[in-house]
């Protein structure tokens, strides 16, 4: 049995109908074949065939029992032994197969014998042996005479060092990768994202910036901040003294030159009075009496009568009317000059009437212009206050027919504001009583107080004051609008917008200069449909008129 070689490919012996030897022969396997097979399949086949054999026998037994024939016991025993053997073989086969998974001795036979020595040899191939020796030489240089354990230790140390170097190199690489945000090789790069709050902030800032650059939003100054800075940047200083929204002004000297011949127009050009020229005209008119005085009135000084038209007061750029106004004045120049001359010759009251007419006309013309220079109110208001104040002061005592060469007695000139001006106003009020209307008074003062070239500005200033005065009175708080005066009615017709500012101006007549300036600012707001500078000038005129009508005002307010 054992010597028999079985073809491994064939399944082990199939137990045929009872045979004695053949089933046994099928169970023999070569060990090699066992290794190939791992034959659960063949085992299964054998087990199935064994099972079939057993069932066949059992069927035979059934047949025997049915037919009541005595079976041939030798045959049955023979079949049984056959089946038994087959089962034993299968079990043995399994054992052999299981042995294939564990080391088991290989049977040496004629075929195996020659190769066995080679396979059993553990010696390296020649070239492999040389390489191996070489590497060993390299590794164990200098250590071969040492005992083995120390050699082992040294080799271990070497290995550790190399391992440490590798680790540090890896670390540096990782750090650099992180710093450059390249991402580790192993992990895919994670894109840095802004958190939402930060992104929202940036978005908001961006919208601000884009709106500002493209549309100018957030850059517009509110009206109350549209004051020219005292010190313009260099590139603007010699170009424009002007402020926002208003005409730019040429340098003052040039303007003055233009203004003087044009001042005749101002008498009638109410618009210009209301506008930029208002303040300057007031100042000019105020200064006119003092034109020939020795003192040089500079607008920036607190001299009593800053002479706006004087060549010496060259820095009052505020007082230069806008080019628009100038052109308008130019247009009216001839006509106005004629009228002016006429006026100068006329008796006083007629002059006043004429002036009123011209005033009215010019008011109509000039209403369209709403541009006033915004100037430094502080310095100017004082001056204008004083100038007009001075004018008012002197117009009365100096008589009627003084058009030129009037000089302000210095004693009368007061730098004061508020109270002082009120006092002066009170002084004037005595004189004012002589006239039927304050408007006439103002006009008269203007007519009196102006030398030829300056009369016009003065007149215009007083005209403006005249116009504003009634307005102011009209608008006095707490007081019913007083339309008793013809001038008031006149002004009401002419200045539809005027009441409130005057009222605002008149509200606090007895305050200090600062408060007056505040008043101006306050009233400035009230001139909604007028230019801001225009309002200011009107305010200033109104302020200037305050002292003149202190009585009335006091009466109204107290």
């Amino acid at each position, binding site marked *: 049995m054992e010597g028999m070689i079985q073809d491994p490919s064939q399944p082990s012996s199939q137990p045929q109908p009872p045979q004695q030897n053949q089933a046994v022969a099928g169970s023999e396997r070569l060990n090699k074949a066992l290794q190939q097979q791992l034959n659960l399949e063949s085992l299964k086949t054998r087990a199935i065939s064994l099972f079939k054999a057993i069932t066949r026998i059992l069927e035979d037994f059934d047949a025997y029992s049915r037919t009541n024939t005595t079976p041939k016991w030798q045959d049955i025993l023979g079949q049984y032994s056959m089946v038994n053997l087959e089962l034993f073989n299968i079990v043995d086969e399994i054992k052999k197969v299981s042995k294939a998974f564990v080391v088991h001795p290989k049977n040496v036979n004629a075929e195996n014998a020659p190769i066995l020595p080679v396979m059993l040899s553990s010696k390296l191939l020649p070239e492999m042996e040389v390489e191996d020796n070489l590497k060993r030489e390299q590794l164990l240089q200098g250590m071969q005479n040492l005992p083995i354990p120390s050699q082992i230790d040294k080799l271990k140390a070497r290995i550790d060092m190399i391992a440490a170097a590798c680790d540090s190199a890896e670390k540096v690489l990782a750090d650099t990768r992180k710093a450059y945000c390249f991402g580790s090789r192993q992990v895919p790069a994670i894109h840095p994202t802004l958190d939402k709050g930060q992104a929202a902030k940036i978005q908001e800032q961006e919208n*601000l*910036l*884009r709106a*500002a650059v493209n549309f100018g939003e957030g850059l517009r*100054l509110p009206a109350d901040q549209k004051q*020219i*800075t005292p010190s313009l940047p260099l*590139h603007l200083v010699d170009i424009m003294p002007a402020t926002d929204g208003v005409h730019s002004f040429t340098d003052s000297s040039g303007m003055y030159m233009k203004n003087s011949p044009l001042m005749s127009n101002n008498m009638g050009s109410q618009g210009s009075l209301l506008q930029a020229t208002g303040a300057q005209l007031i100042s000019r008119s105020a200064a006119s009496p003092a034109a020939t005085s020795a003192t040089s009135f500079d607008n920036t000084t607190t001299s009593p009568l800053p002479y706006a038209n004087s060549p010496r007061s060259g820095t009052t750029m505020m007082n230069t009317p806008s080019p*628009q106004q100038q052109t308008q004045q130019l247009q009216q120049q001839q006509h106005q000059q004629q009228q002016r001359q006429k006026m100068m010759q006329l008796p006083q009251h007629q002059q006043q009437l004429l002036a009123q007419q011209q005033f009215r006309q010019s008011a109509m013309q000039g209403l369209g212009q709403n541009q006033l220079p915004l100037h430094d109110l502080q310095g100017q208001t004082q001056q204008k206050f004083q100038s007009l104040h001075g004018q008012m002061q002197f117009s009365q005592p100096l008589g009627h027919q003084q058009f030129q060469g009037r000089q302000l007695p210095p004693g009368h000139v007061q730098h004061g504001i508020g109270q002082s001006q009120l006092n002066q106003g009170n002084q004037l009020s005595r004189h004012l009583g002589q006239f039927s209307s304050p408007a006439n008074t103002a006009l008269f003062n203007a007519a009196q107080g102006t030398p030829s070239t300056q009369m016009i500005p003065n007149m215009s200033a007083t005209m403006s004051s005249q116009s504003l005065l009634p307005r102011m009175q009209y608008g006095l708080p707490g007081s019913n609008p007083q339309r008793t005066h013809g001038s008031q009615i006149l002004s009401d017709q002419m200045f539809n917008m005027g009441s409130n500012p005057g009222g605002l101006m008149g509200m606090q007549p007895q305050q200090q200069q600062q408060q007056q300036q505040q008043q101006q600012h306050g009233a400035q707001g009230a001139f909604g449909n007028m230019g801001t500078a225009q309002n200011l000038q009107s305010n200033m005129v109104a302020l200037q008129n305050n002292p003149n009508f202190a009585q009335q005002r006091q009466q109204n307010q107290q």
Partner: protein
Amino acid sequence: MECVVQGIIEMQYVEALEILLQGLCGVHKELLRVHEICLKSGPNLGFVASEVKLLCDLEQPEPTWTVKHVGGAMRGAGAEQISVLVRSMVESKASKNVLRLFYALGYKLDHELLRVGFTFCFQRGAQITVTVSSVSKMLKLHATDDAVSVTPGIQLVEVTAPATSENYNEVVAAVSSFCEYLAPLLHLSKPGVSTGVVPTAAAAAASLMSDGGGTTL
């Protein structure tokens, strides 16, 4: 006509952007300090208010003035496909009386701003100008010395190139391709379209600022 795109960049990356632009443009930067005065005509001058910008270059020893009118942008389906804004623009140098002139004409000051930064002008398919500037507003009228930045941490980047109606396509292409080079640091878009910042700008800036790894960042 001009082609224009705008973008924003955080202040910390402006230096990196400068390095990038220097490399791309091949020219040196020019410092920029411009006082922009925007004037608007009043209703008495016409039915539609018109706007005029006066630019005063304060960087020169003698301030030079430029008058500029920016018109409407190109509209239509074609314009929407272009990533660059094409709009009409007329510009001219002017004497220093230009402000007075416009005031005399009846224009009023609408707003003003101050731009401080640098600019690169170069030729790359078209005459391109890149301006990186911080925009400041003036709290008081014309007070350029006391200007306050509108957005303290963010600067505006503007890429413009003049064009005519015949060649604006080429100019648009040139500007677009140039803008792609700036993509690592900032997004550029038509004015009025907000972009946000580039999240990886930090990395790009770091790589631009570092000198090849010899120094620690």
